[in-house]
């Protein structure tokens, strides 16, 4: 996935970067086929990459849709600061909807205990926003290499009124042809970087010199260990037992979700090049540090502790 510009005798030929071309093609189909698309922006590297691709797809025109951030209130402050700066620079509209509002109104119940996270509560806020604005296409940065259920998802993934995915009855997606026809009330989730791997994303960030939030780079942070993972010791957001001792470690984040569901990794990588090298040889997958993915296994472990087999 190397993108080169050949300059010979003043001739410049644009060479194809398959993944980039595919993503740009998808963005243009979204704008042509839907009336109210929106880009789901988390402030993580994947959605930042999406923003760059959207810029490229419509240049010199501006990105022709708004960005939506579902704010759990548990985001890393660095991510939120970055989000505001980026959208201002690009001159795109930013819509923020808060999970806190649904908690305050009693619509959703906040989890409690050791593994409490607002990760699951985001869904309700997202569905509310889709209804409020009448979005018919939500563009997201999910990738098929992340997780095996995601490996089954189409590029245009049709959802019903309740946002549900009918995984056993997906529309066939052949060649480059994308069928975005939906009924009123339905919406489509669109994944332009479906075929990118984690390494592809980082290589692209490096090649394009894309700015990313500081938490992706090595920094000193107050942390504690739980289940073999390094948690952020933020007492407001993350519940911590007394015997879970806080220690300062040099870490970075490989994936950025909420503080309550994203673990850090030990790293001294302070620039993108070093991160690319680090990922190339990493023995652990990206979502190995996602606490939300570990839930089912953690549940198994608990049952075992209580005497289950």
């Amino acid at each position, binding site marked *: *996935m*190397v993108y080169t*510009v050949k300059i010979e005798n*003043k*001739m*410049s*030929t*644009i*060479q*194809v970067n*398959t*993944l*980039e*071309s*595919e993503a*740009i*093609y998808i963005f*243009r*189909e979204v*704008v*042509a086929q839907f009336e109210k698309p929106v880009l789901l922006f988390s402030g993580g590297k994947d959605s930042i990459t999406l923003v760059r691709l959207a*810029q*490229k*797809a*419509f*240049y*010199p*025109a501006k990105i022709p849709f708004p960005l939506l951030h579902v704010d759990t209130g548990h985001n890393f402050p660095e991510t939120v600061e970055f989000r505001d700066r980026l959208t201002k620079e690009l001159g795109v509209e930013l819509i923020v909807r808060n999970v806190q509002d649904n908690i305050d109104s009693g619509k959703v119940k906040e989890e409690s205990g050791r593994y409490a996270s607002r990760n699951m509560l985001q869904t309700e806020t997202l569905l509310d926003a889709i209804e409020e604005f009448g979005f018919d296409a939500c563009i997201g940065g999910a990738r*098929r*290499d992340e*997780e*095996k*259920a*995601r*490996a*089954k998802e189409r590029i245009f993934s049709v959802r019903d009124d309740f946002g549900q995915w009918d*995984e*056993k009855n*997906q*529309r*066939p*997606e*052949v*060649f*480059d*042809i994308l*069928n975005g*026809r*939906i*009924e009123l009330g339905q919406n489509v989730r669109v994944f332009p970087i*479906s*075929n990118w*791997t984690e*390494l*592809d994303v980082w290589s692209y960030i490096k090649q394009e010199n894309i700015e990313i939030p500081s938490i992706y780079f090595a920094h000193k942070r107050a942390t504690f260990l739980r289940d073999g993972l390094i948690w952020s010791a933020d007492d407001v957001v993350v519940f911590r037992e007394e015997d879970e001792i806080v220690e300062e470690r040099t870490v970075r984040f490989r994936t950025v979700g909420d503080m309550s569901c994203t673990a850090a990794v030990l790293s001294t990588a302070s620039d993108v090049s070093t991160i690319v090298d680090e990922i190339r040889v*990493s*023995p*652990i*997958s990206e979502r*190995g540090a996602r606490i939300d993915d570990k839930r089912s296994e953690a549940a198994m472990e608990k049952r075992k502790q209580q005497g289950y087999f």
Partner: protein
Amino acid sequence: MDILKIATAGSVDDGKSTLIGRVLYDTKSLTEDKLEAIEQKSKQRGFDYLDFSLATDGLIAEREQGITIDVAHIYFSTPKKSYIIADTPGHIEYTRNMVTGASNAQASIVLIDARKGVIEQTYRHFFINSLLRIKEVVIAVNKMDLVDYSEEKFNEIKSEIEYLANKSSYQKQNVTFIPLSALKGDNVVKSSENMDWYKGDTLLQHLEDLTLDDVEELSKVRFPIQTVIRPKTEKYHDFRGYAGKIYGGDLTVGDAITVLPSKTTSKIKEIHFFDKSYTSATRGSSVTLTLEDNINVSRGDMLVKKEEEPSIEKQISATICWMDKTPLSPNTKYVLKHGVNDVQAKVTEISSIINTDFSGKEENPSAIVLNQIGEIVLKLSKPLFFDSYQTNKATGTFILIDPKTNATSGVGFIQ
């Protein structure tokens, strides 16, 4: 070539998941946490081996039934190339998912269990590879360890497939035969020590050596317009860019072009990609073009080189793979989506159903049902500009959408 897209076909029993697992394992593409999860679950199920299908069968229903229902995408890379594998289901009732997975493949691997030889499924997999005109096909004769690494057995299967290949409608296809054992690792990534009689490459070596010319046929340049870019800012007040992806060949500034369907002519003025402009662009690039003349061009139109015009007709004949539970019947209306262009279509004739075992056709059927492949004639509401699938993959294919359900009901290959 940077990325190779491969489709694999074969049932669980042929060892397809084991093969994919073996490739991932031997190229060190499985991370520790994923491998641990597979080990743990294999043990839980009482297996004394690693069940790699647990890594690729991502749906609960698939793991319950132990079969692949829908296409899974698997990614790995070597220092030379990135690979995307579309792992497709082999059962007849999932033919549509197999076509889905294989439609974007540049190469295909068909698995055969050496003990069973060529079976009904092999015929179908081979047939679909020919229908889709996948240029590079590898016949992976698996489980060689269970037939004592017999050269005779391998040659038997080889000659049977060669007989099929002779009957195929796609004679430019390269068929490569590799004897291997996914379980033991023979000839997958590492050369086998058990088959001295085999002098060819291992599976991975073969894939590593493929070039773009090996897997893609060149055709005439086609540039379907996805959207018109009009910034209307002070700086770009009069900018009118035509955004799309280039298929078939290359485009250069100064090329004389014809716009379809209006047949107006002009020349390419600039080729833009993001904030730079270029003098030429290769197939596969998503670019934005400007033209010398201010002419009327909109989404669904297509730019072609002058004197390379495609067919323009209001009626087409096509081979269709049916993907909907509601059968295809005469006089039904559909939305035909041809790349980025939509037209209304009516089925005027169902000419035949093609037997996927190369045994011929059934003439004048009353309908084509789910997972069947047949030949039809369609009447269109307005002229379509197209090529035959044989001459241009991108402009020779379409889908039929049921306007009542919006489902993608079938995929067509224009004859």
